[in-house]
């Protein structure tokens, strides 16, 4: 089921990209990675992944801007965005709430919890 799903992982921290990639690949997902928002947006536009996992504080283009850029892309076909952050402030909650199919996940996160969240979405999505 998971084999046809592509997940984009955007994080400036190599070890974190590595562990998410490993966890998802073990489950049979295709994983593409980007080390900042700009690279992530480029991959998002070109490869149209089924879900995005992104950090907020990143060089060049941060996670919030990436989500804002992704919003028009979701009009054609929505996809889940998991925003991983270490501080869930009221401002963050409010901008995340305005985005389509976007959820917050607090750092330090558990890879299993992240996977669970993705699978739940895909199940609900019916695909």
């Amino acid at each position, binding site marked *: 089921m998971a084999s046809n799903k592509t997940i984009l992982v955007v994080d*400036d921290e190599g*070890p*974190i990209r590595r562990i998410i990639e490993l*966890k998802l690949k*073990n489950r049979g997902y295709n994983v593409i990675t980007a080390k900042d928002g700009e690279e992530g947006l480029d991959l998002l536009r070109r490869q149209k992944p089924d879900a995005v996992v992104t950090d907020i504080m990143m060089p060049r283009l941060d996670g919030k801007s990436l989500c804002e850029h992704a919003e028009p892309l979701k009009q054609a076909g929505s996809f889940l965005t998991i925003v991983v952050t270490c501080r869930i402030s009221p401002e963050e909650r409010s901008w995340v709430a305005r985005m389509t199919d976007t959820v917050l996940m607090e750092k330090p*996160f558990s890879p299993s919890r992240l996977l669970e969240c993705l699978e739940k979405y895909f199940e609900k999505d019916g695909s």
Partner: protein
Amino acid sequence: MRAKGIYGAFLAFFLIGIALFGNILIQQEKREQVRRILDQGNYLVSLVALHPIDDFTGDKGRFILRTLREYVSSDDLVYCFIHDHNGEPLASLGPDELISSIPKSVESQALYALGIKSQSFPVEGWEAAIYEFAKPIFAQGERTGTVRLGFRLHNPSLFAPERIELLALVAFFIISVAVLIYYGIILALRRLNNLSLGMKHEFLDPASAASGVVKGARVEQIIRDLEESLVLLRERMDSIELRKTELETKFGLTAFQKNQLTTILDAMRSGIMITDSQDNIIHINLYMLALLNKMREEMLDRPLWDVLDQDEILSFITQQGIQGRERQVDFVETTFPEVIPGNVFRVSSLNLQDSDGTGTGRMILVEDITNEKLAEKAKKEFVAHVTHELYTPLTTIKSYNEMLVTGEVRDPEMQTEFYNTILEETDRLQRLIENLLNISKIEMGSLTLQRGLVKSDSLVKDCVAAIETQARRKSITIEKLLPDNFPSLFGDKDLLKVAIINILGNAVKYTPENGSITFSLFEKDGAAVFDVADTGYGIAEEDLPHIFDKFYRSKDPNIADKTGSGLGLGITSEIVHLHGGEILVESEPGQGTRFSVRIPREEYHLGKQ
């Protein structure tokens, strides 16, 4: 002579008064008499005219007239005639000589008038005038006769017994008042009179020159009186002068206090406006005038609403007014983009009260809070940055550990890689915590040196050891240029190590693979110089002034890609300065960077700490 004149005038005044008063009384009595006659006449003639004409023939007529005579005083009613419709007399009452003297015109007017007719006429031989009242008698809508009644108007006498008493009372009153006024004037003039008489006696009358002693006493008395009056006058003038000076002083003091208040307000670095209870501006300081770009004359004594254009401030003040008169401090933020673009101001209002709690106006305070805002923003950014920096390695450690524990990583090579990553991230976390502790000590001013003898050879060895693994992983060669005689330093070995490792660590981090680092130590001008040169990415020109700023990170992708807290160089610089040294940087983007740390050598004496 003069006394006689006064008495004559007094008598004339008295007689005129009595005559005038008597005349008023007589006129008044005449008016009353006429009114009484008119009332009585109209009433009686109507009453008599109610009888049918036949009642006046024979005995009945005489009876009616007799009753009338008994009812009305004979002094007033002088005649009564009843005529039939042809004007022929049916009955009459009254003295014959009077009846024959009534003028014909009066008689005919009375006989042919329709309503009540009243008229007055004089009669020869009678002192008084006669008032006649006539009214026709009707029966079944037809005139059957006429009633005529004549009343006498007496000429009242001034000296009638009932007026004599009143006149006597008035005379007494006039005399009393005249006497009182006379003696009042006499008393008031007596002192002046005495004085003038005295003067005459003393200086003009040769007859009194002989009585020298009496004369001297009189003169002395006059002089004493004059002196006393002068002293009293002077005292009064002194008291007025004193009061004037007191008022002038008070006025001067108030003006001074007002000026002083204006000076104090003008010296303040915040905008201040003070209004009265009607919201008219009574004080405004220079700072506020500059913010509003107005002159003081344009603002003073004018209502706030007329002179302030800032809607934010006005609506804030309106809200404050609604909330009541209790003292409160609330604020609104505003800007003055035309005067100071970019700055943020806080407007607060304080209701002013006098000692008994009555509202006397308000004080509006406008403070520049741009720096506070920047500090608040910086604080938020600092917390966000630190949180991110702390949670990132923690996330790696936790997630890698979870993968190992759940057995998802079975390949031994990968397991080793995971353990190494956990170790590296733990070190990173430790370094970060140390850096944070150091930076917080620096911020609080409590970073102090634990000075002691520092042997530079062991310092160099420890520093190189700390970065060797990382350098080896990137195939970076470290060339060491060390002296034969290592200089000894008097400083804090641990902190110096932190400072140099931060520089060496940066050199490894920002030098691409297969690059090289040259680490030299030499003595120059009484200082030990630690020199680190790399073949790395270099520092962009715009970044150079900021590299020692806390949390500053370059936007250069080569730099931004690498993990870093942005704290290292700030801490290094602080440590070097605490040792009295300096740190120099030279960099060429794309070529490399050279950091030189100069630590002055100090003689080390045993027991010196």
